[in-house]
């Protein structure tokens, strides 16, 4: 019951007038960013992060978390009204959301998405509250060896479970880690990889520069290419009747929604998985267990509710390892982690001891953000229909302006803006060639921790690498990492073996 006391203290932080205003602002901004086709939570957080200097650190992080939350709600809007997912996390919502809109039930679909997101968000925040403190307590036992093994495990999940090309994933992880070593060597203090003494590289490459490049400039280029014709916006009229009917319909789906929430929360915790696979899995399971599976894909309201509960639950789930272990579960949480470090709040178990007010303030703000998001979402539906008519070119121009300003503001060096342009073009080309970008961003954020813990562990044993295998927790992580790393190889072997007897038949 200690948790309840801490949570009550947290509400004292998050319910100050400034923070309530921040949550409302963040959720609204997030809803609009999420609703724009192509832009999702990660783009929103990357673009807004440099602008958060305007408020104190705790409020800045609450703002970013609120944007994250709002964007997860907003993703459904363009899935339903345009048939284009606002972000990959809302792909599954198009399957039934778009047919519903075409049948003239866009309003009902939007309400279902909002209510389902609320249920998913609430159940997952409750799970978050229950798991956060025990996990942080366990993480207190971590030394450098465990930290290194855990980061390694996070990367190997991308190799084993990411679903992308294994070799390309490995290239991206290594590239991110190498970019993270640019600057001064943390142990000897000597400059390295400064590329012929370019002064801008001495400070290292900020995660923000890479994120704005890849998720700002790169995303704009990708959007220009893929969405050159403005799609038709379905109109959504919202009547009181829809609201009542929506809530009545949702009431029949408790099983689907609670299952989707729990599934989403745990899938979201895995670094390589996250909201997109969680929502697809939840959709698939809802269809499998449905009494009328043939109605899925043709405008079944359950097909909107299932993925929307799961993707919101997953976004909360991915916050858990970020806050308690300092290992982000998704690119967006990697940016939140980077933002917290910028503000001098080092995520990880010590945060739960040293910055109790902040941690519980943030957790309690998730409750308020969730409530604010569902109310604002439903209230602003007519505004979304209007905003989605905004031409792409205006949106793209504004995002590019923000990329220049957001890149310059934190370091006040034009060097970083040049890097953003470079990363933007490179990220766009790499994405087109099927190189996954999430491991790249995560690697840049986690690189310093990985190198530091690796070298600290070895210095403490005077260079004996057995330390990673002799401590029980670290050894467990290492074995798991080895299994994940071997998964693609095993898969390939099995495919070869199953192929071989075929010609003989």
């Amino acid at each position, binding site marked *: 019951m200690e948790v309840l006391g801490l949570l009550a203290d947290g509400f004292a932080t998050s319910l100050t007038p400034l923070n309530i205003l921040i949550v409302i602002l963040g959720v609204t901004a997030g809803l609009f960013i999420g609703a724009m086709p192509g832009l999702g939570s990660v783009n929103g957080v990357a673009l807004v992060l440099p602008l958060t200097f305007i408020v104190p650190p705790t409020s800045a992080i609450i703002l970013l978390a609120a944007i994250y939350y709002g964007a997860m709600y907003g993703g459904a809007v363009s899935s339903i009204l345009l048939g284009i997912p606002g972000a990959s996390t809302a792909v599954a919502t198009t399957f039934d959301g778009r047919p519903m809109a075409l049948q003239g039930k866009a309003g009902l679909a939007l309400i279902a998405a909002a209510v389902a997101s609320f249920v998913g968000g609430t159940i997952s925040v409750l799970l978050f509250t229950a798991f956060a403190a025990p996990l942080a307590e366990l993480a207190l036992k971590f030394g450098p060896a465990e930290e290194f093994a855990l980061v390694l495990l996070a990367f190997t999940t991308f190799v084993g479970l990411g679903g992308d090309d294994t070799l390309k994933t490995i290239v991206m992880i290594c590239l991110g880690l190498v970019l993270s070593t640019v600057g001064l060597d943390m142990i000897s203090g000597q400059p390295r990889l400064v590329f012929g003494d370019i002064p801008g590289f001495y400070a290292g490459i900020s995660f923000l520069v890479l994120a704005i490049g890849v998720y700002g400039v790169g995303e704009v280029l990708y959007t220009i290419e893929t969405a050159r014709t403005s799609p038709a916006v379905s109109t959504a009229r919202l009547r009181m009747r829809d609201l009542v009917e929506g809530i009545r319909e949702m009431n029949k789906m408790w099983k689907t929604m609670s299952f989707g929430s729990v599934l989403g929360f745990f899938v979201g915790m895995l670094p390589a998985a996250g909201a997109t696979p969680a929502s697809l899995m939840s959709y698939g399971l809802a269809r499998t267990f449905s009494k009328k599976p043939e109605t899925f894909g043709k405008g079944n309201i359950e097909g909107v509710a299932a993925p929307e509960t799961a993707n919101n639950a997953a976004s909360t789930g991915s916050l858990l390892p970020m806050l308690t272990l300092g290992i982000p579960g998704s690119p967006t949480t990697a940016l939140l982690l980077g933002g917290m470090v910028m503000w001098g709040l080092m995520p990880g178990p010590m945060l739960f001891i040293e910055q109790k007010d902040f941690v519980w303030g943030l957790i309690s703000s998730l409750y308020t953000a969730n409530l604010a998001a569902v109310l604002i979402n439903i209230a602003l539906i007519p505004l979304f229909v209007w905003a989605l008519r905004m031409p792409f*070119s*205006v949106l793209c*121009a504004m995002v590019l302006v923000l990329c220049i300003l957001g890149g*310059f503001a934190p370091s006040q060096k*034009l060097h970083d*803006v040049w890097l953003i342009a470079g990363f933007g073009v490179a990220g766009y080309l790499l994405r087109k060639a099927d190189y996954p970008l999430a491991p790249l961003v995560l690697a840049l954020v986690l690189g310093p921790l990985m190198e530091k813990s690796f*070298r600290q562990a*070895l210095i403490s044993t005077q260079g004996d690498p057995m330390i990673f295998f002799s401590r029980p927790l670290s050894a467990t992580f290492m074995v798991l990492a080895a299994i994940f790393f071997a998964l693609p190889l095993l898969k390939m072997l099995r495919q070869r073996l199953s192929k071989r007897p075929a010609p003989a038949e």
Partner: protein
Amino acid sequence: MLAADRLIALALMGLSIYFMWHAKALPIGWVPNAGPGGGAFPFWLSAIMLAASTLILLRSFVSHPHEGEKFFPDADAIPQIAGVVGLFVATIAVIPFIGTYLALMAFLFIYLKFFGHHGWLLIGILTLATPVVVFFFFEVTLKILLPKGWTEPFFFPLYAMFF
């Protein structure tokens, strides 16, 4: 797509070698009783990157992935994307000379006129309102001075008013 796949793999191989060459400046080996040297982490990770991108290149000759797919499915998009990239780069390049404000205004004007084909009213509103919002948000509220280049003297009266 196959050609692009190979070119990108080649570029990544080149990049890894370039990184390895720079990482060599610090010890890349095992320092006795202390573990890896300062250059080891970037060097060996670049080496893994080199190996993986070489495998990607070799694989493309064996299994021909993405054959028949086009890297740019819609060829009409190429000039537009090249144009946007060129405009973006040019905007950053002129910031030290004509300052952020004029550069952003020129960027918005050219982008909205030639890429968006918008009317004068919208172009006028966005081109004139953006620098005002930017000035009040960044310079007045956040106290972050944006580069102004030759236009710096024009801002002296504004500085006097707000600082």
